[in-house]
């Protein structure tokens, strides 16, 4: 079995979000980019564990993105992926991105595709389902556990307030969240080794963008907090009832 882990590049969590060009573009000045945490901590590490247990022979990471993404892709190699593929295009629409990944997976016989639960920038949570549909494969989202029993995958799916243990064959797409694995820090040896691991660049197949971001907007500035005297909690209740109207 070969595992394909989908990795994306996102602004670091602590980034101050700003826009340029009349709020039509995200301002990348001074922004530090990282591997999307769910992809790195959960999807990739669980894939590596499955390989280490002897159930998979190969873990490949794939990113749809421009050449400047190579740096974060190398981090995934340093953590332990065998090789990497970058589909050379600017991902503007999730469907067009999913088409690339599904095509690559089918052409190269990957049967387990893993993604993070969502990207922390656009919070789509949608790429995995699209890839699954394009591959006519099951998609199990928000997975906190994944075990292979021979060719059968046993996956725990987290739902609001509960969970379900699902069982299915391959090919399969899984989106990973907390619980799936423990984050790994790349070792010096891993970092050195990553320099010589293959990072193949492939050109995209044709796919149309079905959506585009027309405009960004920052939420209205929060006014100053209204401080309430700890000796007078009744005032808080009055404010919540009469002003905020939430109780």
């Amino acid at each position, binding site marked *: 079995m070969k595992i394909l882990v989908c990795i994306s590049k996102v*602004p670091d*969590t602590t*980034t101050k*979000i700003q*826009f340029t060009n009349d709020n039509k573009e995200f301002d990348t000045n001074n922004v530090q980019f990282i591997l999307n945490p769910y992809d790195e901590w959960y999807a990739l590490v669980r894939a590596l564990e499955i390989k280490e247990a002897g159930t998979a022979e190969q873990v490949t990471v794939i990113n749809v993105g421009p050449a400047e993404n190579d740096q974060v892709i190398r981090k995934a190699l340093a953590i332990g992926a065998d090789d990497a593929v970058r589909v050379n295009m600017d991902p503007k629409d*999730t*469907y067009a991105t*999913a088409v690339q990944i599904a095509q690559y997976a089918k052409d190269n016989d990957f049967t387990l595709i893993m993604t993070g639960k969502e990207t*922390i*920038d*656009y*919070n*789509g*949570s*949608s790429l*995995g*389902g*699209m890839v*699954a*549909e394009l591959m006519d494969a*099951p998609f199990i*989202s928000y997975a906190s556990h994944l075990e292979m029993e021979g060719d059968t995958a*046993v996956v725990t*799916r*987290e*739902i*609001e*307030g*509960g*969970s*379900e*243990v*699902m*069982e299915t064959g391959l090919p399969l797409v899984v*989106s990973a969240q*907390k619980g799936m694995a423990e984050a790994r820090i790349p070792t010096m040896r891993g970092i050195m080794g990553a320099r010589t691991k293959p990072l193949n660049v492939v050109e995209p197949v044709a796919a149309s*963008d*079905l*959506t*585009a*971001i*027309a405009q*960004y*907007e920052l*939420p209205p500035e*929060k*006014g100053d*907090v*209204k*401080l309430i005297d*700890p000796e007078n*909690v*009744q005032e*808080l*209740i009055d*404010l*919540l009832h009469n002003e*905020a109207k*939430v*109780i």
Partner: protein
Amino acid sequence: MSVLVFAENIDGQYKKATYEVVNYGKKIAGKIGGEVVVYTTGEADHAALGQYGADKILVDGDSRLSVLDGGAYAKAIAKAAEQSGATVVVFSHSSTGKSLASRVAARMEAGLVPGAVDVPNTDNGFTVKKSVFSGKAFAHYAVQSDKKVISLTPNTFAPQDMSGAGAVESFDNGLSDADFKVKVRERKKPEGGVPLEEAELVVSGGRGLKGPENWSVVENLAEVMGASTACSRPVADSNWRPHHEHVGQTGGTIRPNLYIAIGISGAIQHLAGVNQSKTIVVINKDPEAPFFKAADYGIVGDAFEVVPKLTEAMKAFKAANN
């Protein structure tokens, strides 16, 4: 032309988020014209969906759908969309709704807006506002395809009873056994109460509460208010509280009307899960705690003194207002 709404019921129970999404379908139909067709499964009080704006309710009685097999569901929903001439298909942005919306969008080659927070703007094309960067900004997505799929963030609009009546019809999905690929081994049902993601009122505790033995402070206030309880990540990581209560970047994202944070410092990763709450109250003994910058109301004080007082005052308020 019509709007198709996927109405999820869990073991025959419709939740508030489902009524919200039916209502939302009605709002969209008001803009683009046509009727609101609902696709739903199993046995439930389907007619109630009419009250919230469904003109027609397609009930798929196929018992194989009791397992959430997304591939099978996507085929059935896409067929319902085609049959009813739907150009817009709407889901709730719940864990089930999200995973189906993306599949159906790919199947129909429809542009997807996951997690909408407003009604589409149809003045010039079709754009939908959604929250991005973990609540730090919004983006307006222009959907360029003829068909559109939207999932609506729960608790965006309060469901309104429109006292309509929908016609209930049975729907034949045409699925074969080969379309079903997933089995369920075990189910841990949601425990009673409102799941955090749908709660309107949330009381949350952090490391400032010092240990699990002190959680009655949080629980008593929540109980009096009828609120759900949540916690910060270190609290769940230390097993003071169950993991599903953990909110923030790595935990759940919630959007209640009121979020009361007790003994939580307000780290950016925590805010990512709660900053879309309509009103935020922070109780912290440190006036410099970053959470105060994101709060609407704050009390600088010791949680062990302030919260029991607040609980008593809340009890009196409830008694007077019920």
